[in-house]
C-alpha cells in the first residue's frame, strides 16, 4: 500500500491536473492518514471544483474525521453536480440517519436504488433503517470486504464511492458498473473483437492497461465456448484464474461480449465470482439499453 501511495504521489507530481488525486486521497484515507488525504482532496477540488467524485472523496474523509456538517455540504454539492451519484446519495442517507431524519435517509436511499436497482447494500440499508438499526459510521477499511460493505449498508463507503476514479475519458464508460463494489476500476467489458465497451484497468503501478488487456482477451469467449463444447460440458459460465499478484474472473454477459473482473489476491475466487455475477447482470442490462 505504501508503494501504491508513493507511485500515486509520483504520478500526481508529474501531472498535477490529472484525476489521480482521487485514488491517492482514497488510498491515504484507507490507511487512516486523514490529514494527508484531506490535503490531497482539497488540492484536487481546487483544480476540479465541478467534479462530483472529488466532493464525494472530500466528504468521505470529513466523515472519517467526524466532521459531519461539512461532509453533508460536500455530498450535497456532489448530488447537485451529479444527481445520480450513488456514493453521495448513500452518504447523505447515512448522515440523515445519524441526525434521526429517517424519512430523508430513506428518500435518499430510494433515489440511489432507482439509479442502482441491483445494489443489494441499498436494500439492506433501507431494511436496517426500518428496523431502527443504525448502520455503522464509514470506516477507512469498510470497503475492503463484502461483509463490511453489506454491514455498513447506508454508509457511503459501501460501494462505488470507495473505488479509485478512472481517467477522465473513461468516466462515462465506467458508469456501466456504477454502484458496484470497486465500480471504477478492475472491471472491463469488451466485445468479441477486443474493443472496449466499458470499464477500465490499471496495473499495479497505476498505468492504464485497458487496451492491452482487451486485445489479449479478444477471442477468449469463443475459445472457451469451443473448449467446453468439445468436452461435452455445455455452455461455459465463467472462468476464474488465480494469479501471483491478483485474481481474475471472466464471464460473458452476451455471447459476444466478455466481462473481466480483476481484484487483488486477497479476494477469494468464490467472492470474485459473486462480484462478477453482479457485474454481468449490470453489463447485460447496459448492453440492452445501448
Amino acid at each position: 500500500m505504501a508503494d501504491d501511495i508513493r507511485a500515486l504521489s509520483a504520478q500526481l507530481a508529474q501531472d498535477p491536473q490529472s484525476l489521480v488525486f482521487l485514488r491517492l486521497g482514497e488510498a491515504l484515507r484507507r490507511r487512516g492518514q486523514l490529514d494527508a488525504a484531506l490535503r490531497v482532496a482539497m488540492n484536487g477540488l481546487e483544480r476540479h471544483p465541478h467534479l462530483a467524485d472529488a466532493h464525494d472523496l472530500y466528504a468521505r474523509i470529513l466523515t472519517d474525521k467526524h466532521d459531519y456538517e461539512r461532509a453533508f455540504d460536500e455530498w450535497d454539492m456532489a448530488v447537485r453536480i451529479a444527481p445520480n451519484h450513488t456514493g453521495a446519495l448513500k452518504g447523505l442517507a447515512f448522515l440523515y440517519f445519524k441526525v434521526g431524519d429517517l424519512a430523508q435517509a430513506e428518500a435518499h436511499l430510494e433515489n440511489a436504488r432507482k439509479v442502482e436497482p441491483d445494489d443489494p447494500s441499498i436494500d439492506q440499508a433501507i431494511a436496517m433503517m426500518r428496523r431502527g438499526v443504525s448502520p455503522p459510521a464509514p470506516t477507512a477499511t469498510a470497503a475492503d470486504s463484502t461483509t463490511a460493505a453489506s454491514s455498513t449498508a447506508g454508509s457511503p463507503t459501501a460501494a462505488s464511492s470507495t473505488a479509485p476514479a478512472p481517467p477522465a475519458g473513461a468516466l462515462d464508460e465506467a458508469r456501466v458498473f456504477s454502484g458496484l463494489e470497486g465500480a471504477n476500476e478492475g472491471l472491463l467489458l469488451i466485445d468479441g473483437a477486443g474493443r472496449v465497451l466499458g470499464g477500465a484497468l490499471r496495473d499495479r503501478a497505476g498505468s492504464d492497461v485497458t487496451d492491452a488487456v482487451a486485445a489479449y482477451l479478444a477471442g477468449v469467449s469463443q475459445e472457451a465456448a469451443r473448449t467446453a463444447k468439445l468436452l461435452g460440458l455445455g455452455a461455459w459460465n465463467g472462468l476464474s484464474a488465480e494469479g501471483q499478484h491478483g485474481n481474475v474472473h471472466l464471464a460473458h454477459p452476451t455471447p459476444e461480449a466478455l466481462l473481466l473482473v480483476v481484484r487483488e489476491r486477497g479476494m477469494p475466487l468464490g467472492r470474485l465470482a459473486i462480484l462478477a455475477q453482479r457485474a454481468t447482470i449490470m453489463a447485460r442490462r447496459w448492453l440492452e439499453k445501448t
Partner: protein
Amino acid sequence: MSTALDHITRVRGVRGAMLVSAEDGIVVAEQLMEGIKGGAVAALAASLAGRLRRAMEAAGTGTSVFWHLQAEQGALLVVPGGNAQGGILVVAVAEPDVNIGLVRLELLRAAESVV
C-alpha cells in the same frame, strides 16, 4: 508422471487428467475416461492458457497459478507448472459437482512433482 495423474483422477467427480505441453498443446501424459478427445482438449487448453497468461500479465496480476473454466455440465481445471510459457499444464476435466478445492490441491501437487 502417471502417479501424479493417479492422485488427480482419484478425486470423486474427476473424469480425466492430462499433462500438456504449454507451448505446443501436445499431450505429454493422460488418464482420460472414454469419449474425451485428449488431443483436441490439450490444444484448446494450451491456447486458452496462453491468452489468459498474456492478459493476466498485462493486467498486472502476474502469471496464472490456477484457472478454472466453469460450464453447465462440468469444468476444466488447469495448473500451469514451471515456466508457464514453455512448461507443462496439468489439466483435469471434472463433473459440475466436483470438489474444486481438492482438485486444485492435487493439480498443484502434480505440477510440483512433474516440473
